[in-house]
């Protein structure tokens, strides 16, 4: 299946290679570089490339390309999913998935890759299992290791892979038993020029951080589970209980994991927490334009909107912006032509406003389209879909765990378009 993996940084250097079968020369990446040169944006590089003898399947994560080489037929999604899993594992191990971190932990990374695939077929991808075989680095251990010459390879052999519950190791012990769940929802919305919703949906995810002793069996139930549209679960969740009772019943992995992701579709009414009044004009003569944006609260269920930020990709001809903001501050990046207005907390009494003039390249024709606005925001303690966790029960262990649920709403891909008609 997966023959080799190359990690390539933004500037096109191969800084790690791993082969699971015979060695493939790194010159195979030249085909990839050729395509990458052509694509303006790294995200525009097609994920699957065909070369005379190999197929190259790549993903772009954290400014890195994970490029795998495949020789025979394989479901492409299989490879892509796996590459994402590799990136997730790095993230989990080192806190981030970047070139610097990978270079610093080259040996650990190499060992991880060795464990994750055998002969190109995934062997151990559960982070709990991997962590028992190869311990993640931390400062204390690296100090101890240098002093004592110890290692970060586990001396006890893992049992998790051999137990009935492959995602949980046996013999977990904590003094404080805690289970936290974060319900994070992102609103994806497109509003047209007049402010009406063209499209809106909510992508939700339940992140869990469970540190419980032994083999707990948890049941998480919601007040309004019918709200959820399509879900995908961590493998630990029992499908059947969900189908019949609409509760999440599972034996959790140890530590952080994503319990489920869900989707509240556009059929349900999605509340849009803010409204935006925008007015961007470019004048035919005088090579200048006007900009006037006001943001106000709308359907935010009594919570404060925080972290409000507006990003506008200006047309290329806009040279500079001379604006005044009643709240927050703005920056205009001349090279990328991106105007960012960082507002912060939204005060309903005094609506934030940004207005001023834009100066354009002299002699250039007026831009055809008005730029669209991307809006970023956060609402603490609120899941905008109205989803609520009703209770968490634990079976199988005697102690009383500490439980907590946190809600957070974020703007995902929140866009306001400036529509004009043909």
């Amino acid at each position, binding site marked *: 299946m997966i023959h080799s993996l190359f990690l390539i940084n933004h500037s096109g250097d191969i800084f790690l*290679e*791993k*082969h699971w079968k*015979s060695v493939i020369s*790194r010159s195979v990446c030249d085909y990839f570089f050729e395509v990458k040169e052509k694509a303006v944006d790294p995200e*525009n590089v*097609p994920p699957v490339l*065909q070369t005379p003898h190999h*197929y190259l399947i790549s993903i772009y994560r954290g400014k890195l390309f994970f490029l795998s080489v495949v020789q*025979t*037929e*394989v*479901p*492409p999604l*299989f490879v*892509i*999913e796996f590459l994402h899993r590799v990136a997730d594992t790095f993230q989990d191990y080192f806190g981030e998935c970047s070139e610097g971190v990978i270079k610093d932990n*080259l*040996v650990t990374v*190499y060992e991880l890759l060795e464990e994750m695939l*055998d*002969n190109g077929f*995934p*062997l151990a*991808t559960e982070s709990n299992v991997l962590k028992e075989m190869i311990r993640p680095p931390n400062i204390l251990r690296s100090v101890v290791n*240098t002093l004592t010459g110890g*290692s970060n390879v586990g001396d006890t*052999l893992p049992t998790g*892979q*051999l137990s*009935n519950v*492959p995602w949980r190791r046996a013999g977990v012990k904590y003094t404080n038993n805690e289970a936290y769940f974060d319900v994070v929802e992102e609103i994806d919305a*497109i509003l047209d020029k007049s402010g009406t919703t*063209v*499209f809106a*949906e909510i992508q939700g995810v339940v992140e869990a951080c469970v540190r419980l002793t032994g*083999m707990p069996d948890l049941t998480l139930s919601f007040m309004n589970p019918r709200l959820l549209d399509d879900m*995908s*679960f961590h*493998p*630990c969740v*029992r*499908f*059947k*209980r*969900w*189908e*019949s*009772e609409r509760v999440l019943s599972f034996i959790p992995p140890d530590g952080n994991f994503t319990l*489920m*992701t869900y989707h509240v*579709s*556009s059929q349900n009414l999605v509340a849009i927490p803010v409204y935006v009044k925008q007015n961007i004009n470019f004048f035919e003569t005088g090579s200048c334009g006007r900009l006037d944006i006001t943001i106000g609260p709308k359907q935010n269920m009594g919570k404060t909107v925080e972290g409000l930020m507006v990003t506008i*990709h200006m047309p290329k001809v806009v040279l500079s912006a001379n604006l005044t903001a009643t709240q927050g501050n703005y920056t205009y990046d001349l090279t990328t032509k991106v105007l960012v207005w960082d507002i912060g907390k939204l005060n309903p009494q005094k609506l934030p406003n940004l207005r001023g003039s834009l100066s354009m390249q002299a002699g250039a024709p007026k831009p055809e*389209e008005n730029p669209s606005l991307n809006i970023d925001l956060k609402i603490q303690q609120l899941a905008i879909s109205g989803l609520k966790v009703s209770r968490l029960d634990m079976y199988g262990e005697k102690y009383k765990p500490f439980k907590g649920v946190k809600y957070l709403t974020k703007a995902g891909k929140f*866009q306001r*378009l400036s*529509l*004009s008609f*043909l």
Partner: protein
Amino acid sequence: MSASSAFNDEKGGSSSVGEPEYGHDPASGGIFSSDYKRHDDLKEMLDSNKDSLKLEAMKRIVAMIARGKNASDLFPAVVKNVACKNIEVKKLVYVYLVRYAEEQQDLALLSISTFQRGLKDPNQLIRASALRVLSSIRVTIIVPIMMLAIKEAASDMSPYVRKTAAHAIPKLYSLDPEQKDQLIEVIEKLLADKTTLVAGSVVMAFEEVCPERIDLIHKNYRKLCNLLIDVEEWGQVVIINMLTRYARTQFLNPNINKTFYGSDEDEDEDEEEKEKKAEVAAMAKRKPYVMDPDHRLLLRNTKPLLQSRNAAVVMAVAQLYFHLAPKAEVALLILFEMISTLYTCGMFEPYLKSFYIRSTDPTQIKVLKLEVLTNLANETNISTILREFQTYIKSMDKDFVAATIQAIGRCATNIGEVRDTCLNGLVQLLSNRDELVVAESVVVIKKLLQMQPEKHSDIIKHMAKLTDNIQVPMARASILWLIGEYCEHVPKIAPDVLRKMAKSFTNEEDIVKLQIINLAAKLYLTNSKQTKLLTQYVLNLAKYDQNYDIRDRARFIRQLIVPTEKSGALSKYAKKLFLALKPAPVLESPFKDRDHFQLGSLSHLLNAKAGGYQELPDWPEAAPDPSVRNVEVKESVRAVGTVTYRDTGALWGPQKMEGSEGCSFPRASDSASGSESGSGSEESGSGSESEESEEGSESEEEEEEEEEKDKKKKKKELKKPVPETESLVTDLEGLSLSDSVLSPATIAPSSVLKNYELLHRITGEGLSVEYCFSRQPFSPDANMVAVQMQFTNSATSDTKNLHMEDVKLQSGMRVKEFPEIGEREPEDIQCTAMAVMGIDFCDSTQAANFQLCTHTRKFFVSIQPPVGELMRPIFLTENEFKKEQGQLMGMNEITEKLTLDAKCRNEHAIVQRVTTAANLSRVPCGSDKECRFAGRTVTSSSLVLVTVATKEEGAAQLTVNCEKMVIGTMLVKDILLALTQ
């Protein structure tokens, strides 16, 4: 120590391993000497006897490998450390070995003995990793060693080692394809494995080594379906893909029956209800299509996987449904909904808005979404879609704008109502400042106009005006072609355009020049008065063009249209030739013609056959024999007992196992395999149970039409008072149905076990009793043998208060009586009752005599155990077996020569017959000439070891080692009998 300080100096005190090894770049020859020194330094560290130094050195070497630097000259120094005690050093040495063994084969052989030792290690993980590395070393000389190791590991106790063995199979196969036959044997063996850990890997091996041997799957099909949900996600993808192919060869096309009664049936697929009725009606009339229960099983068991977090799994299930499910299946709808969120390739209208495009999407996603939107467009939603398209046209991504314009064109051709709107919109686009947009619109307009040119002369006029501005050659060419084609609609403008073009002819692109010649020719034919001179001028220009295509064309057209004295008959038809009615073009998707590849495969994505692509076979005309999938019950027993940590139950259908809820809790599954049915979890509560039973009955109704036959069969068999026959159990196994009467514990032993009669129906006046040795541990007392009794009342009167009395036993023997059984109604179908009693036979075959009493009568009965039932199986490794055997020589060993029965010359048959005769378990064994079994007697726990060594021509030797000589002799007799008959 000196070495370490030297190293530290060189590194400037930093111990980071991330430092790049610039020195080894061959290009930098200047510092080659110092680089050489550095490697010396590494060698020194590797030779030292301090683990920390070795580790440091290995880390640096592995970092070099990771960066793609050559470290092969260190091979001798590294390979020495393969036997190092330190686990981390060892691991890194393995990494190094796997990378360079191919290049340094001779030296690599030095390490082989270490791995061979590792293969015998008591720790399963060391065995596994030794096998992993051994099989990863690509050195042809060791193929026989690898083969041996794989065979041995395939029958290892530990599923983890077996999984590694499965992984090793494709490695060996790629190294030496001649081993195929032997490897297939191993695959066959591993396919029969019951653990979820192994399933995915072995199917992977199957796909790589022998995908054509579909016959190997038959016996394991149901098991794979049932285990699927518990297999790890990567294995699921592989298994689902394989089962898709399998199902295409084994089952009938579920959609074909539509054609039988399709005449009176409208095509609306959503009206599923109607179809169902029609189906029922059709069934009554003709021999109906009945979906194979196994086919249904597959669909049902894969459906919950749609909610996997792994997109690859979801896609695999989606393609399975696409290729296998009946089109009317409701599931299909749900399916597309699922994909819509995960993968940009769904076709369902309510989810239209999910495909709206954001400016931040990468271009190829945008184009894909556009494709989906275009395909979804119909009369009702076209207006919203067009509005969306209008937004897209304003995008800054010009490739995407071009794709959008083409999409508009396709919508316009597909949906007649909006053609004018689209055309108007496109015409407005012609005044766009961006040339690319204009050009693309012209091309699309040209195609659209071809459909109804007469209505749109004003548009053509408008376009004629554009020739002054547009510079993109393709667009200019399109306009010229349009004008030429419809010159009758714009008689005044056309000659003028030609005049302008003639002026600029020399500066045009080739493609435009060709169209100018075309235009000239057409005008000459329709309006020769005005354009004769112009045409000749253009043709003259073309005659001296640099491009030979253009010169050829000019010459050809001149001959055709300008009448000369020599001109032949053709020129008469010139008008017909040039102004023939041309069919309107079909605007089609660039994604067409891909459907012959399996959905979701690499080949499908690239639209080209990738290496190793397995063609999806067509449905067979007639279904092959479904009975090949019937499995001998012994295997099903284990399947029931398999530990499942996720509920196996599907969303619908009758296979909700009562036990599955219970055994989905790992702590419940830790207990004996037989105890599932009772151990319903507290937390699932009564609510879930009642719901379950409800669902059960619902689904039964659903199944009714399809599985009527099955049901009848089942009923018949339930009526039979005798304990389950083999066919019933296979039925149950296929459907995973568990009646409350037949708990897994009671199904379990029936196939291997013989039934003995305790009381005949006639002597018992209607009450008959049979018993068997269930081979389950008897929980109240471990020293007792469990005897399972089955009471059947075929009399006309009730039987009440069944109990035991007056037990007569030899000294030392004990009996645990079964609890009294209440009323037995004679007419009840389930007039059978089960009871389990325990007897401690004191390792003798003396009979236990007692009276069986009802409320009216007493019967004298006795139970005498065959010697094989006086033992329980234990698990030994090969080494332990040999050791124990060595201690039971001389008097304790009994050897017999025998000739095997003709039907029992393969390993499988021998194992089966021996385990039927005696309650022993198989001991893994390296050689295929020997079968070994081990057990202990129930009461005294004396070891019983059995060896069957086969020789040529069915000759064999049976050896029994047992402390208790009496038992040994009797056992030899029994096994001899079993093997020779």
